[in-house]
């Protein structure tokens, strides 16, 4: 290692002495080109020295790591983790995989044979991670089930055609289906979009607009009303034609809003969020079974709407109606959020009542 450092230092010092001195006058073009040429040569040499040093360091580290890691088989993939964390890692990955296995069945997916390195980044440092996925716990959400489920979904999503992947984001199936449907219901009631409101009111065709799967060519006018377009402009990173943004938002000029939205891709303006779109895909997959997953991965020609229909194996109306019914069944209990509050209020009332009955005046009477 010392020899390598010595070689590198020599390489750096020799030609740079002339070229990298603090310059006080404007360099000429030819001087600069010459400086860059000489630096390129040095960089090539430095890179090759660095590659050797990196390889030596990697080998040393891997030798030290030997015997300190466990390798687990979970479903069709491997999990590599420090000794002592094996049972925990197995539990997380098995739980997450079970949710996907229900949809994927025995189909071959992009997760087949993948290696996940799970643990603290310090404990994984030095492992040869080429071709594997690092799942370091330092920046992983505390909700490990959700975080690992999302990672697995992201890997499986590699099988999906690109447009479907863009539409649905990570192929993420939540641990708690009830909660997923609650969120979908909330988005149906709170998303500011004419298409979403119509879908909520039972106009099934409009649910496809709300999902961003119909009328993409005229999305700004079909999916949103004028006042909703202003909200879209506020949210989107629109190109800044001078004054158009202020004119749209402050002067409420719809032509200015349209001018800003016209260049935007329809994907940027889809009313319902990714999680809600995923509930439609999950619904289609559950109707179609594992064969549905195969159709989803292979089918790339038709529009996403037609593909969802093919995946489910039922008609478009039946699919969207089934999804809507499921979401409405997942309607959250409006009082559940205040349950703790109610108990807490009651407890405090009892405490205060108890304290007040202990006052001197009460006891005297």
């Amino acid at each position, binding site marked *: 290692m010392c020899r390598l450092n010595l070689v*590198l230092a020599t390489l750096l010092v020799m030609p740079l002495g002339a070229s990298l001195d603090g310059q006080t006058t404007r360099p000429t*073009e030819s001087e600069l080109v010459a400086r860059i040429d000489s630096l390129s040569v040095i*960089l090539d040499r430095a*890179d090759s020295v660095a590659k*050797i040093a990196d390889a030596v360091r990697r080998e040393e580290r891997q030798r030290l790591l030997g015997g300190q890691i466990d390798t687990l088989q979970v479903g069709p993939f491997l999990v590599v983790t420090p000794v002592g964390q094996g049972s925990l890692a197995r539990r997380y990955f098995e739980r997450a995989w079970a949710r996907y296995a229900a949809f994927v069945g025995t189909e071959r997916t992009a997760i087949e044979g993948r290696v996940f390195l799970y643990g603290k980044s310090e404990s994984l440092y030095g492992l040869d991670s080429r071709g594997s996925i690092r799942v370091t716990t330092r920046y992983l959400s505390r909700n490990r089930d959700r975080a690992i489920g999302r990672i697995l979904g992201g890997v499986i999503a590699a099988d999906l055609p690109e447009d479907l992947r863009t539409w649905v984001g990570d192929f993420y199936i939540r641990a708690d289906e009830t909660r997923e449907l609650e969120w979908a219901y909330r988005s149906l009631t709170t998303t500011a979009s004419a298409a979403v409101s119509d879908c909520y009111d039972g106009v099934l065709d409009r649910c496809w607009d709300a999902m961003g799967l119909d009328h993409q060519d005229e999305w700004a006018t079909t999916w949103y009303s004028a006042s909703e377009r202003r909200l879209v402009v506020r949210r989107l990173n629109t190109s800044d*034609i*001078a*004054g158009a943004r*202020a*004119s749209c938002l402050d002067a409420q000029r719809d032509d200015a809003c349209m001018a800003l939205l016209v260049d935007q891709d329809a994907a940027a303006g889809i009313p319902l969020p990714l999680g809600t779109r995923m509930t439609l895909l999950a619904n289609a997959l559950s109707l179609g079974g594992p064969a549905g997953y195969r159709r989803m991965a292979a089918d790339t020609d038709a529009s996403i709407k037609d593909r969802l229909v093919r995946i489910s194996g039922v008609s478009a109306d039946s699919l969207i109606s089934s999804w809507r019914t499921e979401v409405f069944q997942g309607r959250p209990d409006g009082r559940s959020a205040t349950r703790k509050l109610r108990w807490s209020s009651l407890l405090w009332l009892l405490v205060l009542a108890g304290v007040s009955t202990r006052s001197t005046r009460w006891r005297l009477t």
Partner: protein
Amino acid sequence: MASDMKRTVLIVGVCCTVLTLWLVPAEPLPLTGFRSAPSRSTPERQAANEIRAKLREENALLQRLRLVDSLSARLVSSSTGPVFVDLPPVADPEERSMLSEAVRRQVEYLRPGPVDMVVGVSYVDLRFGNHPDYQRGQRSWADYFSGTVDGQSYCLVSYPFRGEDPTNPRSRSNLGNAIRDQTSTRFLEDTGGPPTDLLGPCSFYLVHGAPGVAIRRWLRNDGSRLAWSPWLDGRGMFPPISDHRGPFGEWDRTRYDVRGSFGRESMVGEGCLAGRIDACRHAVLGRTANMDPRYISPLTHPESYIELEEWISSGDSRRRQPFAGRERTWMGDLEAEFGRDRFARFWTSDQTVEDAFTAAFGEPIEVWTMRWAQDRIGIQKAGPSVDLLSVLLTLVALLACIGISTATATRRRV
């Protein structure tokens, strides 16, 4: 009763002490996170990365040097008026006329005096000037240069655009959109207001000529961030401080509109708004903090081409500016308040910036800056404080408690 009270007070006191000791650490928490972690690269890899960074900086300098040499030569040989519009041959006539019209409006608004100065506005492919081995180098922001060619003083504004890539048949030029985004006035409510700022710091060159030596050094040393015009649509230039700060002067991100307003003032800006005179001085004379250089391209480091004597500034807005970018009108506001003649005396002075300011405007630069900032943004509360309403409510509650307990005690005695 008295012993009950003492016991209660004692229990509350002990609980409070325990909670304080538990929640408030006796010494600062250790700094953790990846920034404090030692680098895992080998020294050889670090050395190679440093050489690569240096190489990119040299390429950035080469780009600017070629840019200023070619544009200044063309400007001086082709210019027929105070401002020369220089577009590549691929620009269509509509784009040319849009840019020329926008420039004409700004020149008309500025009413330049008879100074020996020509200004050029150009759009140049963002990959222009790269070394053959580093074709991926791209300029991201406008560059501003000034100098002299054949005895003619000039100031150059060069906007980047993405030209068609001959190696990629699907690539499209964005020249039209770049010009349109910069110059369109279709949606302006107030077309009588200040026009689009196409010239940046060069507008001061156009009106007042070349600055004095110290002023020019100051402009290059980050002072140019004070020499812009307001955004055309007034995008939240000076929202009152209460728009984005709570009652204690704390930053309130829930009120802050990312796109409609400027960001948060830096510590220096907050100090100035709170009346710290040194902070005001630093806010205009000191350099702004760069973002962490690891996360931005070397092509946007002015440090990489500051040795180019013609360079004045880049329109890079990603620095942490004391007043979060609102200082872009500092010089314009100064000129508006004191008049063109006194500003010209300051601009062309050979004294240091501070002496030139005091000589031209009769007060120190930091005093005027504090007034400027506080008038426009508001006064920032500094240090611990409680708002008036809370103080009043606490006093009322205390008086009520005292009143009730006194009345109760009096009744018992009877």
